């Protein structure tokens, strides 16, 4: 019985190069901070939920997602999972954290097991679409679209329930030095 060809990201060769360059660039970013605006459309709610805040990415510690408007809430996103500032963990969130970290940084190497990846564009104007490979992920996420230049600028998450989240990121600081 012969092994089939090894599965991997569904991309063409040129797209592989773009993906690799994005991953390298992500690896160079030690610390990134900025602000975000978020718009969430929830099925059943006629108006979108808008929020804003700041984020701080550290390669070693992950992302601190600080929502300042309309409420004050801090979410820690790390390889260990998602955790709110009151210490309450989000159950079953390690894969969500992995996804968010990959999405924020553009390093999608860890996500190839869970998503098929479609990449297009150029190094400073790229677009990536993630579609779930497994039924388990598909139960939560339908599709994730990312666009960006030097850093991720826009993220659109379409959940399986039909809820959508659109996040715009503005990087204020791009510092390679250790905090």
């Amino acid at each position, binding site marked *: *019985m012969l*092994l*089939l*060809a*090894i*599965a*991997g990201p569904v991309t063409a060769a040129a797209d592989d190069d773009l993906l690799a360059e994005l991953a390298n660039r992500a690896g160079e970013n030690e610390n990134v901070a900025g602000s975000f605006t*978020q718009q*969430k459309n*929830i*099925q*059943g*709610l*006629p*108006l979108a*939920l808008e*929020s804003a805040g700041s984020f701080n990415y550290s390669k070693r510690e992950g992302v601190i*997602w600080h*929502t300042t408007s*309309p*409420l004050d*809430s801090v*979410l820690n996103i790390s390889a260990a999972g*998602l955790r*709110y500032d*009151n210490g*309450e963990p*989000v*159950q*079953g*969130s*390690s*894969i*969500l954290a992995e*996804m*968010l970290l990959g999405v924020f940084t553009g390093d999608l190497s860890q996500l*190839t*097991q*869970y998503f098929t990846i479609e990449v297009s564009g150029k190094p400073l104007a790229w677009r990536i679409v993630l579609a779930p*490979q*497994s*039924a*388990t*992920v598909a*139960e*939560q*996420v339908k599709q994730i679209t990312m666009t960006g230049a030097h850093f991720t600028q826009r*993220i659109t*998450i379409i*959940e399986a*329930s*039909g*809820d959508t*989240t659109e*996040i715009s990121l503005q990087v204020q600081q791009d510092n390679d030095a250790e905090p």
Partner: protein
Amino acid sequence: MTRSSRAFLIGWIVLLLLCLLYSGKRVVQDKAIASNILGLIPQSHDGALQSLAQDELLAASERSFVLLVASATAEKGLAAAQALENALHDANLIPADDSAALPRQLANLYHPYRQQLLTTQQRHYLNHTDVQTIADAALAKLYSPVRSYSPYPFTDDPFNLAGGWQTALFGGADRFLPSAVPSVLDGEQHWYVLNGELYASPFDQAVQRSLTTLLREFTAPDVRILRSGLVFHAAEGADLAQSEISTVGAGSLLGIVLLVVLVFRSAWALWSILIVLGSSTLFAVTSCLLVFDNLHMVTLAFGSTLLGLAVDYCFHFFSKWRASGNALQARKLISKGVLLSLVSSAIAYLLQLMSPFPGLQQFAVFITAGLLMACFTVLIVLPLVLGNRVLAGPRLTGLFSSVVLPLYQRVATLRWPVICVLLTALLLAVAAVARQGASDDIRLLNTSGDTLLAEERAVSELTVRVGSQRFFIIQGDTKQEMLQATEQLSDSLWPQHKDDPGQADTSNSLFSIARFIPSLEQQRQDHLLVQEKIYGPGRALEILCQSLPDLCKQNAPAAADFLTTLVPERMPAQLQRALKLNAVLGDGFSLALPLADSLDPVVATQVAGTIDAVDYVDNVANITQLLAQLRVQVSALLIGFIACLTGASLWLFKRDGWLLITSLLLTVVYSLALSAAGGLTLFHVMALLLVMGLTVDTSIFYIKLGFNQDTWLAAALSCGTSLLAFGLLSFSQVAVLEQFGSVVFSGLIFAWLLTPLIFCLFQPRFQYAR
């Protein structure tokens, strides 16, 4: 040959032909050779309920297996796992995987009851958190970039109680990664998990071969596969038994042929032996198939030793045939001895019928039937066929008269020193046996190799496997009583969960129907709590609505009435099967299985004792206890048998009877002392019954026919062929066979050496018998 003799012979041939036809049909067509190693283990249950529970558990789990696949990188591992999964489907070994539909099916089932189902953590959170904090937390999650698993729209379940409840249903779910093939992390290594369910029985050898061949072909240098499941143990057990049969059977046969050719140098002798061995084996197989409807492979492995036993009669016959020059005369000379030997051996083997081990019961019938036919063939058929033919060839008088007899005569002159040595050795042997103690752990009898056992352990540690050897039985007049008793059991086993639910994890929870459908009483309490904290006036939902006015203006979630329809009877059968709940829900009882099999049996027993409706079953401990009881019983039987034999020997053989008993006792104690290192087991004791049969055989022939070159040669040849068979068995990887083989091997040597010594020491006439 007279007409009656000819008719007799024809009748014997017809009988054997019928045996051949019947056995051939049963084995080839009906596949009557069993390889289910579990068939060797006795039922240990104290009652019908435990037996029923065990059967249901086994039926639900026996076809399941798990494969963990890994490679150098996660990508390669995933590709290998997907390829293996496709190969298993293509080979028709497993049905299509429909587990992807399970989350939606569960969501549909639980939707009406989403306000009355809480996990321990959720219950604790609601009990200890004020409504403002609950509302604030829900709002914060709403504004989070992603939410955890939410089976229902936000407007249906704004606090996502259902997401928490349904995620917690599968113990250890958080350790599984949702890759295209689910995986678990072991450090940096990704292991991809394939859950398989065979179409056919794991004991079907065609299925075993198909699966093991596929996995063997799939294994590559950079692909690792870990296996877990009964089918692999069954396959290994069957391979082992086949290997043992081949080794012991072929080894015995080869040894017999070589000895016959070497000593008797006669084609007639060789053909005679082959006829005896063939007819006795065929009759033994047929008898087992008639009595038990099947024949276990381990019985065949054991039964290979029949060759060494049946040939004993042949050797005695040949010795006297050569000495007397006439086959009919030889029959007259040996018939009493052979018949006495047959009776004593049959009694010794048929005592195995008293054991609860189906394998040993089969062995008893196999050997007894085989010896019966061997005796018949030697005493009736061979003389008819051989008639007045003479067994010519050089007689090996040299060895006995020049070496053996003088040696025994010389030793006999040192009577008292030899007696002192024998007595000292006897005392040391008794002390050794006493110091070794007993060992009755059923796990010592595991036939699976170390590699498979290590893989089984690794799979258990990486995934969540529910064991089937230790569990709770919950009885009740109604399903609700059983559910409440199960909840009480869980609370009693882990009382710390109420105050610190964060401690709850895979290793301290139960797999039971109550996990999926709590009692109505629990649902009622949870419903009240949810109304009190979330849906009641001024509660968390109203507070949330202040921040989300649109939520409460349109499609506002409302408090739901308590529903009494979430009961085990209403769970769809298909869903029960998919969740394996059909194994834990019986008629008038239900089962609760500790997840990860890490519950201390002592604690489990204590807790079960405090709840009337709950019993704890520990099959490992039960069978171990049963083995210990049987060991004591068989030991008592052994002693009784020796006592009866003493009486019978003294009555039949007068003073010579003491020689028989002395040889027997010394042989039994010495062989036990040498073989039972690591502790005396039931199988060592049962093997002693065979040793006794063999020793009595030897003694009877010396008493009846005298200690001379013919009798000694026959005994030596018998011992030699049996030594080969049991010696090979003592190297078996199957613990039962190894224990049997080692006791009988050493017993044979002692019987062969000591019996003439005892006879020469205490009865001078044996020193000069010719």
